[in-house]
């Protein structure tokens, strides 16, 4: 099998309950850029039962072609039939690049598929480019062009690795959700829809779904949150935490707090960040009305971005903050919420 035969950028269009997951649109956005660099097209692979009607949505976000694998066996995600579906698509259509979202489903599916088709997979990528491999030509060694360069944090984010897969196809990657940008929606766009069914034999030899539980938890685990809106004594009262809750709702984050807040009985202990609470590492940590004593900072200083709002410009929290505002949180937080909502509204219109 010659590598040249492999063409096109494919993305796995994850759907759950016949609703396309956001990550599919993000992958299309990135896939389109990669396809442009390679002079090829982007294809979405939609797998499920009775999902054909979703193809237009994928077209609106940039899919040139949609391959639909539709079978009752594919109603709910299970490793075996989905692997069979994707591996069969790869065997038949021979994509050059195959991207899967690094969701719980994608992280399960990606490795199974790559082992079955015998190729390389980079997990949880945060950046994808087309370039040369090796990056810098080495005398006496062939430099390959138009390779997918997959970049991902490794060792707990302490190093950044760029990985290529020069000798096998497709070049596969699972991509961290929330990192890639969707394209603007083109209403009414259409894509070529191709149906493909490799044939499924019902089997529950390995996996049988007994029950699907939709989790409704009343107290979130702040350690899983990507964005934390954290309040300290400066918030002033339990009622005033509404400002933070509004901000968290607007930005898709969770509310956490300092020890002082728990001691005042404004919030439960589960939400406490710090030495005697939980250690968190969200992408974004808002420290609102938190002075930033080391006892608190020890629990959040590993956050990717720290944004501090405090009326005292000498508060130690500003020593660890990436961005800071000196001022009254009662004025700043509602404004911030408003701006975020406005930005989201204008984005939704596009």
């Amino acid at each position, binding site marked *: 099998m010659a590598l040249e035969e492999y063409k096109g950028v494919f993305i796995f269009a994850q759907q759950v309950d016949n609703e396309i997951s956001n990550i599919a649109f993000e992958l299309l956005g990135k896939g389109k850029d990669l396809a442009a660099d390679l002079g090829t097209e982007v294809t979405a692979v939609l797998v499920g039962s009775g999902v054909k009607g979703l193809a237009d949505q994928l077209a609106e976000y940039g899919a040139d072609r949609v391959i639909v694998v539709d079978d009752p066996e594919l109603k709910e995600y299970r490793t075996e039939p989905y692997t069979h579906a994707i591996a069969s698509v790869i065997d038949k259509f021979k994509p050059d690049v195959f991207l899967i979202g690094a969701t719980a489903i994608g992280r399960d599916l990606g490795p199974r598929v790559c082992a079955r088709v015998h190729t390389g997979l980079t997990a949880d990528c945060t950046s994808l480019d087309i370039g040369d491999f090796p990056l810098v030509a080495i005398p006496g060694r062939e430099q390959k062009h138009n390779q997918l360069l997959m970049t991902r944090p490794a060792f707990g984010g302490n190093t950044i690795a760029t990985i290529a897969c020069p000798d096998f196809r497709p070049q596969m990657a699972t991509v961290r959700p929330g990192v890639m940008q969707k394209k603007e929606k083109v209403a009414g766009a259409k894509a070529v829809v191709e149906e493909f069914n490799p044939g499924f034999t019902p089997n529950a030899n390995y996996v049988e779904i007994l029950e699907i539980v939709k989790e409704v938890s009343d107290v979130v685990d702040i350690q899983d949150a990507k964005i934390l809106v954290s309040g300290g004594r400066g918030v002033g009262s339990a009622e005033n935490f509404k400002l933070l809750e509004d901000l968290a709702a607007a930005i898709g984050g969770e509310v956490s707090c300092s020890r*002082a807040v728990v001691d005042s009985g404004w919030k439960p202990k589960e939400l406490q960040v710090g030495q005697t609470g939980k250690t968190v590492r969200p992408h974004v940590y808002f420290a609102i009305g938190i*002075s930033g*004593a*080391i*006892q608190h900072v020890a629990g959040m200083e590993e956050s990717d971005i720290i944004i501090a709002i405090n009326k*005292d410009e*000498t508060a*130690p929290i500003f020593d660890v903050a990436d961005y800071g505002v000196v001022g009254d949180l009662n004025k700043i937080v509602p404004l911030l919420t408003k701006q975020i909502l406005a930005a989201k509204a204008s984005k939704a219109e596009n």
Partner: protein
Amino acid sequence: MDFTLSKQHEMARTLFSEFAEKEVKPLAQEVDETEKFPRETVEKMAKAGFLGIPVPKELGGQGCDVLTYAMCVEELSKVCGTTGVIVSAHTSLCVDPIVTYGTPEQKAKYVPDLASGKKLGAFGLTEPGAGTDAQGQQTKAVLDGEEWVLNGSKCFITNGKEADVYIVIAVTGTVEKRGKTMKEISAFIVEKGTPGFTFGTKEKKMGIRGSSTYELIFQDCRIPKDNLLGQKGKGFNIAMHTLDGGRIGIAAQALGLAEGALERTIAYVQERKQFGRAIGAFQNTQFQLADMATKVEAAKMLVYKAAKAKDQFNADGKTSYSVEAAMAKLYAAEVAMEVTTKAVQLHGGYGYIREYDVERMMRDAKITEIYEGTSEVQRMVISANLLK
């Protein structure tokens, strides 16, 4: 050189010791178990004059010397570490700085009620980010017309919430020192009940569990301009000097804990029999006790010497007692830790049971190596003086 105590001192000790046996000891276990501040005991001590021992008579105190006060803390701590520290924090950390640095008006206003025990005192220096490095203060005081406005918080404050009068250290600006910008620190007297002054968490501690250790919170707390204690910008010196005296109190507390544990161990090893005889008959026990008693005696001499040095300062206003106090506190605290640990060992399994006093004493002893300057700080003070 005379190592005998005067008649007055002997009488005072008898008084303290009887009070401790009768009023404090019966409650010690309950106070520890329930973490309850012994309010009734404090009232009884106030009546007995224990809360103003080294305070001049004209300010409503007992007019006794520092040694008498140290012995009071020592005797109380023999039976209950909590009660010892209540007296020590009140006397050394709140009353003493007002007596030493206060204006005549401040003394007249605050000291009589504190000395009589009508009011209780506390001292707010430590912050979450400023422990040993007390210069790292974040609490601010800004002069606004006729009032200082305080913002910030203090943590681990002994007698917190129970006390009526607080000495609070805060930053009042910056000063240029040797080309470096330093914080200007001042001391203030703040009364409980002032709007904007509240209490945060009560800490749950390993030992001295009846002592009320609270966070103090200042949010736009306004106090009269006249409540500045001493000169503006001299707060750090006032705090350090106050702690020098406080260290004598804590050294006395550590000494008392060690003595109490030793006394109980001596009694226990004479009662407890194994292998057909009292365990006190075994040479290991005897030698352990000999070591413990010798260290306790050495600690006692250091504590009493430091108390005498402070007396000298109170008389002439210039004798330094900081090294004596640091040595006494360092040594007495480490002896207290060692002696109480050995006391538990010599009690065997029973020593680990809460029904016996020694496990409480061991838990209480540990804090004496930490508060009012850790053992490391004491070594810094001592060595800085050796190498100046």
